[in-house]
């Protein structure tokens, strides 16, 4: 008889605190995909990244602001206009995703449980470096699937670190799992070139550098950037003026994560963007 995957298993020790390893041991998570071998005789296919969305994050005076549009697409079709791409992983960490939602949401779930599992089994919080590496490893394990043409995910990770120095920290990743820490801003997804241009411009020649912006000013810039991205990128929803669907915006600070209410985003939008 096949054992239930959630049955008591005395042969696995959680002493290492590695939740992904536990899931694989129980057959609840796909094994790391092997990179496909190039096949002789078939014409070489170039790999096309399909991160159809726009997400952005930047540091401002009140922490890190993370914003994402709400559109999910499949090829030329809009399949969903209320997708949540800015995901809370724990009390101080946000993962924002561009890429294939199925893989990204699965990664977010694994990550969320990994951090809790580590804290509960090891009786200490995982370090920020450990958390950043955990996501990197999930991306690396997924890369075989990316090369097969499915499941590319390119996330941004924002968190608050209390040790050794209390500060917010912001990272973006590539599809292979390399992490890049940034000091000011990050953007990924198909609409990101436009957003990166805007954030670079604002940071250097805007009224003030991004770091010194207040909350309302930051929300305004995030909305303008997403709206600009949506102007030329069909995969980015921007702001749906007719359907009153606004981007999702969350802020990470010392106090934890704040999700801005839609009414507030709508007010800033009406005043400074529309």
């Amino acid at each position, binding site marked *: 008889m096949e054992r239930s*995957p*959630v*049955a*008591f*298993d*005395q042969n*696995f*020790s*959680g*002493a290492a605190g590695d*939740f992904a390893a*536990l*899931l694989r041991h*129980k057959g*609840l998570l796909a094994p790391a995909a092997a990179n496909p071998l190039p096949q002789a005789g078939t014409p070489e296919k170039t790999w096309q990244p399909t991160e159809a969305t726009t997400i952005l994050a930047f540091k401002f005076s009140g922490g890190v602001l993370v914003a994402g549009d709400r559109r999910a697409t499949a090829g030329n079709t809009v399949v969903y206009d209320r997708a949540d791409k800015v995901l809370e992983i724990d*009390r101080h960490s946000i993962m924002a995703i561009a890429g294939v939602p199925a893989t990204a949401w699965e990664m977010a*779930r*694994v990550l969320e*449980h990994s951090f*809790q*599992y580590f*804290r*509960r*089994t090891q*009786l200490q919080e995982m370090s920020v470096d450990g958390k950043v590496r955990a996501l990197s490893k999930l991306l690396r394990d997924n890369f075989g699937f990316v090369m097969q043409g499915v499941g590319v995910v390119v996330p941004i990770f924002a968190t608050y670190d209390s040790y050794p120095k209390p500060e917010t920290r912001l990272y973006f990743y590539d599809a292979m799992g390399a992490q890049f820490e940034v000091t000011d801003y990050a953007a990924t997804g198909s609409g990101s070139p436009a957003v990166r241009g805007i954030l670079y411009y604002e940071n250097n020649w805007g009224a003030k550098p991004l770091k010194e912006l207040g909350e309302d000013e930051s929300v305004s810039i995030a909305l303008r950037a997403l709206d600009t991205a949506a102007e030329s990128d069909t995969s980015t929803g921007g702001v749906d003026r007719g359907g009153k669907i606004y981007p999702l915006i969350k802020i990470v600070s010392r106090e934890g994560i704040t999700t801005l209410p839609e009414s507030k985003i709508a007010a800033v939008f009406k005043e400074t963007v529309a």
Partner: protein
Amino acid sequence: MIEEPYRWVEAIANRREYIEAQLAPGSPIAALGYRDGILFLTVGQTRQKIFEIYDRIAMGTIGHPGDIERLRMAAIELASTEGFTRSATDVSLRRLVHYSLSPVMKSAFEQIYGPPYLARMLFAEVGDRAEEDLFLRVEYDGEIAANGATYAQARRDFAALSGTQQSRGLMEAFLATQHASDANLESALNSALDAWSVGHMTLQTSDAKEPPERSAVRKHRQEQLANAGIEAAVLERDAGRAIRYRSWSDNELRPLIRD
């Protein structure tokens, strides 16, 4: 010789006697449902005895550290994989204990060529309302006791764990008269400290029928707290957050003690 039924019963009885003797010095743990959640408390430990298991579940234990560790890991693994594959609301203490831990502990106890678990555990799961709080005590032989109403007792909003059955019984008798489920944290803390003292005082005596006098309890408590630390944690009822476990340090709790 063990194949003979009588020998097997005798071996089990010996084993029970041995385990009870091993667990007998174990310092008590009190768990009290109060207005804002569930409070776990013990005093003067060299190693941690109260643990977070999952979003709404915590555990207090007495026993051998190696066995406690294996059971703790197993409980966290089971709850985490269940929460991952289904959802956090599908993780239930009742199922965790009845279907997973108890059968394993029973068979380890009765397979007399293998080692039993030298541990007894007290689990609690915080509900959205106080009436939904669940307390489950699991013994080394897989026996389970819950806080629900039975023929012999009304539903209880507290539970206790101690080195001896007698000491535990006296803690429960004490809490039945002293603890109110709508108490605030301060009252619950003081009741829990008193209950711990009752348990600690009666670990050695084998003939006490009633909890000790109130004045004696207070005196014992003061003496012990002068030299030992408080270990405490709460499961908060607040529905605004998924993770309800929060540990309280000795320093945070000292100002709330009423002498």
